[in-house]
């Protein structure tokens, strides 16, 4: 059976129109310029491309990887193909699939159970304080352009006194700065890189006594102590890097993975909140303030949230727990109650009534950027 094919000897770009004659062990290729013929055993051949539509099938020599035989006739190609051992390529694809599966499982396990908690924590620990201060400085700069800062001297001094006591009890190795933003509608506070805590005036306004404010501040000090703000920043950067690696620049995949990663971030964030709550309980116990005020704050928060959620179905609460950056307030109250121990120091007032009044009046003096 003689058929024509195109042949490249791999030494030059000259194409040879050749006659090929397959037998049991290999194929004769005739018409190679000065050479009369060449014989290639099937064991020395490998399939490069299968014929698709009008495209010829391509066969290469294993011994000389530059040699190419292009066969247009599909029946001739499939006859030769059946003789060429496909074992190695099958093994190779099986090996690659197995390797991919093993690596995927490994990465999933690390990603879901260990990595998000440990790697960012380790990196955050290694980041020099001066860098963290710079991140914080930049963040504070941005915030102070958005908010009006309350600057009443007496109130600020009283607040700093409270923070100092809490910081000492928490054995925080760095000084912590505190600022109050004039926003009565926000009943919250937050910590930022560079050991900074920002309190919204709404929190002070809604606190009946300083121990409620102290509870929230102790919680934020917990974030500072555990370097959570920096850790979260690293975690976010790590995730976005991972997403870029996975998506490989394919925009739609990038968006899909970014959305999926949000759930991982939320879970991560809730773990941090619980950790900060635990530190707060220790600090409040050690200072003798106790967790009563902290619980009162959460009770108020719970009442506020219940009011907002009244119109929704109960199931939405479960969903809220899943989608929230913080654990459910109800769960946090139970957690604090379970973790709280009887203070080993007698309950005492850290701030006088006058000092508390000065804090309450803090936002009567403000600076706007």
């Amino acid at each position: 059976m003689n058929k024509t094919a195109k042949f490249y000897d791999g030494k030059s770009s000259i194409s040879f129109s050749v006659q090929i004659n397959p037998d049991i062990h290999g194929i004769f290729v005739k018409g190679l310029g000065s050479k009369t013929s060449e014989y290639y055993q099937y064991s020395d051949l490998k399939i490069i491309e299968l014929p698709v539509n009008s495209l010829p099938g391509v066969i290469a020599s294993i011994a000389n990887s530059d040699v190419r035989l292009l066969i247009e006739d599909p029946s001739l190609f499939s006859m030769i193909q059946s003789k060429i051992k496909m074992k190695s390529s099958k093994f190779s694809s099986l090996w690659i699939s197995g390797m991919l599966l093993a690596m995927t499982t490994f990465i999933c396990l690390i990603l879901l159970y260990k990595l998000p908690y440990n790697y960012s924590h380790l990196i955050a620990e290694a980041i020099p304080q001066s860098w963290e201060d710079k991140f914080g400085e930049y963040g504070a700069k941005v915030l102070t352009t958005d908010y009006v800062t309350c600057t009443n001297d007496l109130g600020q001094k009283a607040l700093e006194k409270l923070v100092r006591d809490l910081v000492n009890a928490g054995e925080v190795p760095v000084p912590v700065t505190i600022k109050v933003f004039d926003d009565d509608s926000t009943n919250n506070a937050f910590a930022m890189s560079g050991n900074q805590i920002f309190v919204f005036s709404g929190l002070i306004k809604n606190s009946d006594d300083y121990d409620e404010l102290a509870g929230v501040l102790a919680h934020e000090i917990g974030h500072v102590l555990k370097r959570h703000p920096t850790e979260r920043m690293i975690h976010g950067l790590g995730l976005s890097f991972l997403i870029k690696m996975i998506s490989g620049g394919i925009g739609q995949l990038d968006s899909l993975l970014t959305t999926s990663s949000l759930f991982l971030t939320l879970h991560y964030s809730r773990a941090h909140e619980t950790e900060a709550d635990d530190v707060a309980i220790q600090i409040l116990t050690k200072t003798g303030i106790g967790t009563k005020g902290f619980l009162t704050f959460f009770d108020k928060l719970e009442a506020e949230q219940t009011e907002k959620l009244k119109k929704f179905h109960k199931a939405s609460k479960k969903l809220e727990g899943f989608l929230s950056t913080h654990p459910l307030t109800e769960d946090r109250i139970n957690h604090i109650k379970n973790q709280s121990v009887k203070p080993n120091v007698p309950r005492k007032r850290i701030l006088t009534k006058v000092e508390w009044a000065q804090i309450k009046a803090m936002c009567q003096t403000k600076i706007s950027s």
Partner: protein
Amino acid sequence: MSSSVNDSLPIQKIQHDPQLGQLYKICFVNILFSIFTLGIHRFWGITRLRKYLVRCSMLQNDRFEYTGKGIELFRGFVKVMGVFMALWGLYFGVGYLIQHVLNMPFLMKIIDVVLAIAYVPTLFFLIYTGAYGALRYRLTKTRWRGIRFNLSGSAFSFGLFAMKRVFLNIISLGILIPTSALKKESLLINNMSYGSLKFSMNYPTHHLNKVNIVTLLLAIPTLTFSRIWYHVALRKFIYENIQLQNIRFRFTMTPGCQILLDIKAFLLLMITVGLGYPIVLQMYIKTFLDNVEIIGDLDSLKALQSQQPELTTGEGLEGVFGESLI
């Protein structure tokens, strides 16, 4: 220059005939596997796509062939990631030592300042070095008529040269952009070869300054659309000055055609929420190849096989800094 091209010479174009269904199948499988393997499969996916697209390109009834392997891209990526991890580790280790053991924060500040200054030039250097290495890999893996393409020269030298040109462009407020682009391209093309035959790009002078300055000035009011005129003019000039023995090249694309193509691609991606990506990819490749004319007798090219061996690791740096599909 184009004026020197003899009109009686044969003109050929690279034909490109991929099947949209096959292209969709490859892209879909690639995305699916990339998700399941957390991105590791993308090296194999990109290779599969390249193999298909290159194979669907034909010049004088001879198909191009891409022989790259996914494992080679993966290996390159792992190597570069290893180097980066080591550098990060060293950085954090030194930082920790200086801050906590030696207690010399001022030294850390000096290191920070030095690194901050070096950051941007280093980034440019790495991007260009990576692009050169990646192009070298892709060329050694591409064959026509059984003969490999190649790119000689040092990727580091190119990276350094390109980095310098970027800063000259900035200092000159963009006036030197065409000169820099042509110098970079000629360095690249003069190092390129098809087997034993070297490509060359020589030009005594260029006429791109006017179009560069005018389109730069119009860039803001036209939302950078004006720059398309410059880019098309640049490409035309480059192609008209490339030579491979007695073979010359011509780029026939017009700015209008390019704008129309960009608008069509943008609308298609918008309407299909990205699902039209394979169509857009095919559109760009086909339009580009339809506008490249190869002038001269290709059968007279007697190229011997390249003496440089095929690379077995590729695109590490480019794999880290971004991915180009072809």
